[in-house]
């Protein structure tokens, strides 16, 4: 399949990878900035440990270098879809809590949300180039999170942002891996052996 890549497809893939890498890098930088603002705004300790958030995939994975390209894309897509839902919930909770009092934090959250959405779009485009079916989003979406206290909401938000920052780093690495030209075909090496 990869061998059948036309030059335009290869160019398109390279462009999408390049743009995705830069988007992920900017997203990470923005999330780092947002984390600082969030911790300060919410009155949290930056070093506080947060338990894993339910429904949020972890960036850390074993035998990362053994993953195929499609696998990487699918995992990334799943993760960013989850982040999109979590960040949207955070944004709503943020507006409920602070209203328009801290518009700056809300705008920063919205910007990160947009970047997550844009990155998911990049991943979907890359999957389309692979002629892979794009997994549909769950019709009903993730199950509604249990009702949490305000503090728990804050901690969850902290955990989401931290994990998103991790995923941004991983995504950059994943896309760089995908963007590497194949020695034989010029295609991404990971894609050839994708299941």
């Amino acid at each position: 399949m990869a061998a059948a890549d036309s030059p335009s497809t290869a160019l398109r893939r390279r462009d999408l990878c390049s743009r995705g890498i830069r988007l992920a890098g900017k997203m990470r930088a923005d999330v780092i900035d947002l984390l600082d603002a969030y911790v300060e705004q919410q009155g949290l300790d930056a070093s506080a440990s947060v338990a894993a958030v339910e429904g949020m995939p972890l960036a850390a994975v074993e035998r990362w270098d053994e993953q195929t390209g499609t696998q990487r894309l699918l995992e990334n897509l799943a993760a960013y879809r989850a982040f999109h839902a979590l960040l949207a919930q955070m944004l709503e909770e943020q507006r409920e809590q602070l209203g328009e009092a801290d518009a700056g934090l809300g705008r920063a959250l919205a910007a990160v949300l947009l970047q997550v959405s844009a990155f998911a779009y990049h991943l979907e485009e890359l999957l389309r180039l692979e002629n892979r079916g794009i997994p549909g989003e769950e019709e009903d979406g993730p199950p509604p999170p249990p009702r949490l206290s305000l503090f728990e909401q804050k901690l969850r938000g902290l955990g989401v942002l931290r994990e998103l920052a991790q995923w941004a780093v991983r995504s950059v690495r994943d896309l760089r891996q995908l963007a590497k030209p194949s020695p034989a075909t010029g295609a991404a090496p990971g894609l050839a052996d994708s299941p």
Partner: protein
Amino acid sequence: MFSRWNWVACGFYLVLNICSPDASGGLVQSCGHIIPESPVLALGSNFTALCILNESCLDFGNIYASQIIWKIKNRLVPKEQYREINRTVSSVTFNDTSSLATPLTCNILADGQIEQNIYGITVTVGLAPEKPKNLSCIVHQVSRFTYVMTCTWNPGRHTFLDTQFRLRYSWPEEIFPDCIPKDVNNSCTVTDIQFFVNTEIWVEATNALGKAESDPLVVDPIDIVKPLPPQNVSVSSGVLPTVLKLCWENWISDAVMTLKFNIRYRIVGDTNWMEVPSEDTASPRTSFSVQGLRPYTEYVFSIRCMKEDGVGYWSDWSEEKTGITTEEQPSKGPPIWRIIDTSHSPACWTVHLIWKALKPFEANGVILQYELTVRDKSSLSNPVKKYNVTSTNHTLELPEGTYEVTLIARNSVGASPPSVLLIPASNSKAPVKNLRALPKHDKLWVGWTAPNSYVLKYVIEWCLVSSSSNCIIEWQIALGDVQGIDLKGIKPFKCYLITVYPLYADGQGSGQSVKAYLKQDRPSKGPTVQTKKVGKAEAVLTWNHLTVEEQNGFIRNYTILYKTIDGNETVVTVDPSKTEYTLSSLTSDTLYTVRMMASTDNGSRTGPDFTFTTQKFGKGEIEAIVVPVCLAFLLIVLLGVLFCFNKRDLIKKHIWPIVPDPSKSNIAQWSPQVPAKHNFNSKDQMYPEGSFTDVSVVEIEADDKKSFSEQDLKPFDLLKKEKSTSEGHSSGIGGSSCMSSPRQSVSDSDEGETAQNTSSTVQYSTVVLNGYRDQTPVQVFSRSESTQPLLDSEERSEDHAGGADSTAQRQQYFRQNGGQDETNTDRPCFERTKQITHANEGDLVGFVQLQISGQSSQPLGLGMEKNTQESALSSVLQTCTEGQTVRPETVEENPLSVDEMPKSYLPQTVRQGGYMPQ
């Protein structure tokens, strides 16, 4: 009658229908309406409107569609555009909506006359929006994390309608809120920008007539970013004097985009920027060391940035920052020259050493001092003299000789290479040739031809020539291979004296000079001309040269313009070296106006007018006239004096006449005593009443003398006889007759016309006063009341007589008939007789008549008197008789000759009137 009332009722019903509230709740119940209601129409399209009448109105008011008329803004629409669809509907069609206006009304003519409005609509005409074109967007970075995207487009033609533009942008899976422009229709700014995702941007224009969309612009906003310029730029000098290091901050994170840079710099005061090669700054960085700079020079730096891949826009240039490089030792020695003053003593020079401060790029720092070394080359035994100077000149007193001067400039880092100047004892080497100075490209270029020998360098001196101050010398050194330089700091319209010296390895050539102007103008004033000398036909003009400040250029010539008041102007061109000119061929005694014009290559200026008048006479002409006249006058005077001297006795007689002694007069013996004085103030006194004892009056018609009868003439004959018989004692009467009768005889007898001019009648009276009772002497007067012009002659005679007054004149009109002891009247009579000697002696016809008219024969009387005194009666009588005979003709030919007659009359009259000169 019925029909009329029917139509009135119909109109009333219509009004009620329109104006009365409807039972259903509406305010107005119209009799019809128009379809479409308030349409918006495309300009130029066709349009059809329908007016539909209500059935109720038909039934009550007999109103039908055929009665409908259409109006556009009170203007009737032609009926050709109407169409009656049925009895309740009428349509109107417009082929071009541009002819439409608001409102369009449907009206009805009730009874064919009364126009009633049924309905009206508002028509809006416009254009559908055009497709927006030329959409372009740029993302501006407004702060470290904030970006806005501004898109602009061409909205297309004016639609005449309310048209909304909106900027739309979206991702494939996300549509963002539209950006709606405020107050403009061609740009909009989006504040929510996300990078690294291709965004589709387009513009949508919408109005009542339609909607149009621009071509979409698909772009990743990161590719159209114009970042903020680098901030907090600083410049620091390093160890090397040619390097400065720049540091700055980027306001855009690497996560967003990496940057490349442009660095530009210039020397302070210079306007030209230099740029660091772009490949040196094409990678992300926050500092850069600029090399190849000049030591001790202040530079200005500025930086800008853009996305590293070159996609996007350059930022603005950052704020300018300055930095100065460190010092380095001077790169060359200062140019040095000398001015030698030998005015005090040729053997002892005053040497003014002058040198130019090094330019900043040559000094490479602050020059702390100059080290001057003077070596006497003519005498090796003399020690070398050293001077440390902080200024740029130094004066030495040196004996005449050859010297070598060395100059070094020193700054904090080190010393410059030495500059050497050789001062020879004399400038004996060859000078430059063909020295010339020309303006070239607004600079004064000095060129020369090099001498045959090798020249190390040339020194070019120049100074501004001024009439009021000394020439301040400026100078410049040119290399030996140069044969021309541009002089700096030359002002236009000023005269410069330029001198070029060639410097040889072993001496110096003499200087060659030339005067030059960078730019010439016409003189600032004209010469003031005046005359030095003015003659009859020439004038010497003189003027002063214009000062060098007034010349503004080389004076090529002077032009003299002169003219008379009404004459043509004459132009004379004069060499500029002259200060005097002689105008010749001028007209004498004529006013001339002269002015003078000085001309340069670029124009002329005329001085003030000067006027002068040429002389009437030339030189020596007056002398040629005056001297001879004076000499002639002197000669005449001399001759006169000699003549008078010779005739002094005669003159003496005239001036101091011999006053006869009345006591010895003959008439005193003949007539009663005459008082010594007589008062003439009153006739009464003169002639007291009753004193006249014997008066005889003779009236003679002057123009009719022939009418006298012989009888009338008898008494005069008798008198004549009496006179002739009493010659010895009638001298007084005779004298009187001698004085007056010739004149009277002329007037009365022969000069009829002349007499008539003055008086047609001449009365003569002879008054004889006899003594009264032997007490007072009897005065005898001869009176004449003639108005003949004898008076003038008598007045003149007074002058000759010397001093008779008016009383005496009046007295002359009295003819003395009585005896008067007059004496010395022979002279006038003598003159007179002499005058008439030319008369025809044979013409004695009028002798008797003359005696009658003249009452007495004065010549005869005079002759008698003279004879009495000098016993020459016969001869004198002959003379007088001849005179009497000739008289009438003489007077006719030349009446003036008669004037001389009173010369002998005055003294006698005086004596007769009793006036006695004392």
